[in-house]
């Protein structure tokens, strides 16, 4: 079972991101469970969403305490929430930023993870470019596919298009594609 925890703020599509990710996994014939951190989701408030992916039925209902992957949609959150709690030693970290891990003072944390498991991606910038809205979730999913290889990008794309039919879906899909490509470049560079 692979567990993803997404941190963001209300209005950034955190829950939708987790849901789309679960749909992508479902499309590949796997079991997936996405759920929010159950609250009254007000714009700007810290929000957490969860996604579990497995090859068998997922019965577990507890919030994800020891994620295999942490997606940080808003890099300012660590100042108010203990976002890194429980991240597995071999886990992944994906941060939405134009800055560097150093800029964010996350270098030490990133370095604790296996090499190549921590990536940054300018998802909001990509979203503004393609979707014209600061909704980084789709782009981050593209980056997630590239980073973890847990789901194919094609599935992510289909999940995005299912969640957002029409032009909005296309735009999000394009943002995801660009994020995917950006991370893949880094991946290839790392493995090269």
């Amino acid at each position, binding site marked *: 079972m692979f567990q993803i925890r997404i941190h963001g703020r209300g209005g950034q599509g955190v*829950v939708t991101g*987790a*849901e789309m990710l*679960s*749909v992508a*996994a*479902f*499309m590949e014939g796997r*079991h*997936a*469970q*996405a*759920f*929010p951190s*159950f*609250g*009254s989701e007000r714009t700007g408030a810290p929000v957490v969403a969860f996604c579990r992916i497995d090859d068998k039925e*997922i*019965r*577990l*209902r*507890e*919030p994800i*305490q020891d994620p295999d992957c942490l997606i940080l949609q808003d890099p300012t959150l660590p100042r108010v929430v203990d976002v890194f709690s429980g991240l597995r030693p071999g886990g992944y970290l994906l941060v939405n930023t134009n800055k560097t891990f150093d800029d964010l003072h996350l270098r030490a944390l990133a370095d604790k993870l296996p090499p190549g498991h921590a990536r940054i991606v300018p998802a909001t910038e990509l979203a503004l470019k393609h979707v014209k809205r600061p909704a980084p979730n789709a782009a981050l999913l593209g980056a997630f596919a590239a980073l973890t290889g847990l789901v194919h990008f094609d599935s992510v794309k289909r999940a995005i298009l299912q969640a957002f039919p029409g032009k909005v879906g296309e735009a999000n899909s394009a943002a995801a594609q660009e994020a995917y490509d950006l991370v893949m470049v880094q991946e290839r560079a790392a493995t090269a």
Partner: protein
Amino acid sequence: MLKQMEGSHAVAEAIALCRPEVICAYPITPQTHIVEGVGELVKSGALENCEFINVESEFAALSVAIGASAAGARAYTATASQGLLFMAEAVYNAAGLGLPIVMTLGNRAIGAPINIWNDHSDAMSMRDAGWMQLFAENNQEAVDLHIIAFRLAEELSMPVMVCVDGFILTHAFERVDIPEQAQVDAFLPPYDPVQVLDPDNPASIGAMVGPEAFTEVRFLAHYKQRQALRLIPALSDDFAKIFGRASGGLLRAYRTEDAETIVVAMGSVVGTIKDVVDELRDEGQKIGVVTLVSYRPFPVEALRDILKTAKHVVVVEKSISVGLGGPLADNTDGVLRNLENRPRLHSAIAGLGGRPITRASLKRLFHDAAHAPWEGPFFLDLNERVVGREIHRVRKVRRSGSTAENILRQLALASHLPQE
């Protein structure tokens, strides 16, 4: 058809497949997505021959359903928490009138203090109202139970409440097999009321009944629920034949055959408990779990059959009958009462107001049940430091103020101060 979807929307689709004729909607978290979903289906024309009514309160929601049902329409509504309490009078009334309304309860705690998160306080508050209460373990079951609920309700002319854990299920995206319309139609015939408001065949429904007949009326209601104890498994079998999967039933046992410790629980927490059971089994502990699907009627005999060989019975429940303990534990105690070698009963109150029930805590709990048994209700993951301080503070100060606010203040202070 398999779909990855939100539990609320899955329930909405299941409701639509049941061809309801009158749906009453009033928003309350966490049930909103269900009625919104059905509303969309009605508004878009996907669900035909259905009146979708935006009422002004839960009390009206169920009241409209009562009128519709009495007039021969298949009626549905959904609510949660305070909403259920606000409609409480109508809840009893619908049952008393024998109207086969189906209602989804997106289980949520009851305030004060106001709390929108999941527990079973709401369902428990209406356990004696005369409704049948079915609890879903996951969203597939939520879907299936609604389909079963309509048939069960209409066969017995008795309302059914399908309890779906708020947020944990209602807001969870997961794989659900949405049945085909033809399957549902095969399972659920059109509503044929046992009594109906009909100008061609008039009757007075809802008469005032005095001491001379009230006992009999209540006996007959109880008798109906006793009949349901046989009907629910039969419907489950029937369901399996048509839909190709088992669902519903009174209860389900998991790895209980040789179990020395058997956990009893309802709703979504059972999934987590099953994972814990598997872990403990792997560690060599003889443990199993019983999922109670039907809380009302309470399957006394079926449960006793499973529990009678256990040494320990651990009841994990998301509600508290303040001043007594866990109501499910109390009911389970009744099941065990007359056994010759009665197992020891351990009551745990967990997950109140949305507190996560973790595998780690459950493992500890099940271990302690066998090795460090306790008396009375045990509050899982209780912050004893906080309650200790608060008890002390209240003792000291007459005008001590609100407990809830004081606890929040303590917690806020604690999070800013270095740990002791």
